[in-house]
């Protein structure tokens, strides 16, 4: 214990272990935190990589593994947990049952490392922040965004227009620049680069990541969500967990349904 805060890297010795540890190490370095591996030990698991020591959580214990992990995560000095999510078809469960329980039960940010995610970062991280226009959801991102700002991360806001958020007027092709700037301001992310797109939100997010290269590359997706992966919910998060080529930072909000999340983008004030 150093008093610097801890990043938990939850691994089980499976194929994602190396990427999860690597991502957790990067996160801990950026945050100035200690890395704390948590090893989920199953009877037939290959065990941790050589040289990796940490808290061992036996899968055969009396308590559920996810319960233990959530307890660990709730400790005050833990600021982030990193988990691997496995490759599954979109629509099926996007993560193993332990990871799923952690994702849905956490009240702190979880960094999810998808199956083919690139985890190395050179220089300041570049973060893509997809926003759906719900200001209340966006406000849940605020502490994370402040942290990202503190560590020198470059944030880029992405909004995919859906019918309720399409501005009623657009005077010129570059009017969206002004609209997007105000959109980001109202979401509490002033001064960010803003991209406005149309189409399927998840695919547009993935496209924004894969098409970015060089100085425009994106290292991390940060997205707020309602911690509910039951069928028909969180389609965007579901797709990202399955197909994102970079880690996804999931930030839980207290928002669970549209009735508690009034959407009011710029121009919807009539």
């Amino acid at each position, binding site marked *: 214990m150093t008093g610097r805060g801890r990043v938990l890297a939850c691994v089980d010795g499976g194929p994602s272990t190396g990427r999860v540890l690597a991502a957790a190490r990067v996160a801990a370095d950026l945050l100035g935190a200690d890395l704390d591996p948590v090893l989920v030990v199953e009877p037939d698991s290959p065990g941790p990589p050589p040289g990796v020591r940490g808290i061992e959580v036996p899968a055969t214990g009396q308590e559920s593994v996810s319960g233990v992990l959530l307890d660990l995560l709730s400790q005050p000095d833990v600021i982030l947990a990193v988990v691997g999510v496995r490759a599954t078809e979109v629509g099926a469960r996007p993560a193993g049952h332990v990871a799923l329980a952690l994702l849905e039960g956490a009240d702190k940010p979880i960094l999810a490392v998808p199956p083919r995610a690139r985890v190395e970062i050179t220089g300041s991280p570049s973060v893509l922040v997809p926003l759906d226009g719900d200001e209340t959801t966006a406000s849940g991102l605020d502490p994370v965004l402040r942290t990202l700002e503190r560590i020198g991360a470059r944030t880029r806001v992405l909004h995919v227009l859906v*019918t309720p958020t399409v501005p*009623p*007027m*657009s*005077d010129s092709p570059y009017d969206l620049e002004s609209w997007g*700037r*105000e959109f980001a*301001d109202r979401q509490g992310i002033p001064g960010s680069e803003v991209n406005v797109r149309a189409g399927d939100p998840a695919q547009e997010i993935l496209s924004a990541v894969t098409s970015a290269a060089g100085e425009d590359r994106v290292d991390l997706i940060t997205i707020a969500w309602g911690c509910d992966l039951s069928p028909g919910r969180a389609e965007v998060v579901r797709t990202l967990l399955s197909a994102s080529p970079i880690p996804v930072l999931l930030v839980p909000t207290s928002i669970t349904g549209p009735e508690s999340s009034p959407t009011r983008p*710029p121009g919807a*004030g009539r």
Partner: protein
Amino acid sequence: MEERQRRVLESLTSVGDGLVVSRGATEIVHRGSRPASRSPGLFDDGEVPSLLEGPVWTTLTTTQPPGGADEDWCLDLYSGLLHHRLTASRPRKQPWLTSTRFVSSVRPGVCCLRSTLAVSPGDVEPALALPRPAGSHGRPTALARLTGSTGVVTGSTWSRHGTLAAAGTQTLVPTAGPDPGVEVTRLVVYRTGPTPEAAEHRARLALREARAIGMDGLLDEHRRGWRQRWVGADVEVAGDPDLTLSLRFALFHLMSGCPVDGRRPDCALGARGATGPAYHGHVFWDTDVFVQPALAAFLPAAARATLLYRYNRLDAARRIAADHGRRGARFPWESAADGDDVTPRWAPDLHGGRIPILTGELEEHISADVAWAAAHYRDWVPDEDFARRVAPPLLVETARYWASRIETGEDGAGHISHVIGPDEYHEGVDDNAYTNLMVRRNLDLGAEELERDPRLGEASEAEHWRGLARTLVTGFRPDWGGYEQFTGWSELQDVPVATLGRPPLAADLLLGHDQTGRTRIIKQADVLMAHHLIPSELEPGALEVDIDRYLPYTAHGSSLSPAIHASVLARAGRTDTALELLAIAARLDLDDITGTTSGGLHTATMGGLLQAMLFGFLGAAPRGPRLGLEPAIPRRWREVTLRMRFGGRLLALTAAPSHLRVKLCQGEQLGVEVGPGPDVTATAAAGTILRFERRDSTWERAL
């Protein structure tokens, strides 16, 4: 005030005088705030030039009210005063900041602020701060400096186009009582100049004069100045106070944003004026055909300044024409300081790629719009110098451009191919009716000038232009009794806009750019814009036909659209629909309908709104030296009163559904024609009131 409204309110409560316009941000530093002061017409050196942001004079402290604050903002339109009151919630609910500020209505660039706030004198910032780096939006930070001595702080920002400098001073007086508190009186004067040294020197001299008058004296003369402004320009709709407020709001910002006294002879208000960064302060056709006609009626000196902006950039327009292999002058779609085309060439599309912006290359009608604006001002304002010196080259050089642009087809008719009309959903179209009709008018106006003054060109050239005007295709379809917007419009996919939703809606964002272009859906008034600007040029009876044809396809996806539609619908007697669209224009910024008011106020909408009242509901138009009036006042309005100018006279027009009064408040006698023809005429003498009554559908003189 809701936090989301902060930047919108900052635009809405901007105060200025045509030399400097300051956003209405409160006096405390706030993360979501965008305080800025800009000078209309002074640009930075960015790749896409933007209005230069000058030193900020409105920030008093970085200290925050404990526990946050309730904020009340009040813009007094009558006196040009902006009041803020912040009430802290801890340790008890109590006033934390009260302030009153103004930009003098009689002394250009003189800015005054008096405030009481609950901080120690040491927590009050110096009189000036420099703008924050603008790099976050991709623009280079302006060069800037801030110095202070003997109680005067001087600051400036500059570019190769000039400097915006300010000199400021303030007095701090601790307030009585146990809690810390201070009364601040701040005086700041802005000046422009070729160099920082020159501009700062001017600012310091003007500050000395202002200090000698003192805050109370400055406030008194400022109030008197605004009172005078409202005597010369006002609109009131009895029975509709909300609409009256919107109309006066529009007038207020035109008077605040323009040089009303002609002291800046060359100044055109950009698409958002100087109230925000959107559109970079660029000048579009908005200035010529939306803002300028309203200015001609309410602020003639500012209308003149708008046209001098064009006149002084004729050489640049000539270069642009030559670059396109043409003669004469072609005005750029977007321009800034020097009159070159500054239209961005591309914008991000909605799929991560780039979309070319073709307006700079193809939206050529702006040259005919400039000519129309010059003729309109000449007909509306008795300005001999303008008529003799300024209008002729504007009319002739633009006509000369069109003469070299028109192609004669195998059918023997004149054609203008590959353009964008006001409806920007359709690019690269042939024979856009609006463009061609405006060009026809431009050619005739140019020919008139040539015939009047042989020094401007050969008589044969005038004859040639007259011939081109006669053969130019206008899109009139005898089988319709109206105009086809461009060749082939009627063959496009028949998609009424109602299938997408209820206008206003941005059809191009809903359907995609390419698909929208394959439909008949139009963005804004196009053929109807021609009906609005040049009604006498169009075939009798076509207005009704064209309204019926185009309204079902009009998305009003542009802020320019609703007011113009309201105007033509009123003229057509369809006042119910006119009022629906007028309401959109009236509330466009006040309700932030576009979601972009934070980036500045929509000046063209404000101009269009006033035009709708003047040209639509009152049916005002010059008829030679006489003023023509043909009111179409909705039943739900009791009366409409406009105080405006025509022919150098100050008039008060009061119209109701069944009567009309014309009072000549100032100036020599004026002839007035009421109704469609010259049958009902009268001459008003100074101080007299002419009365007219409507019986059935005709007007007659009343005693």
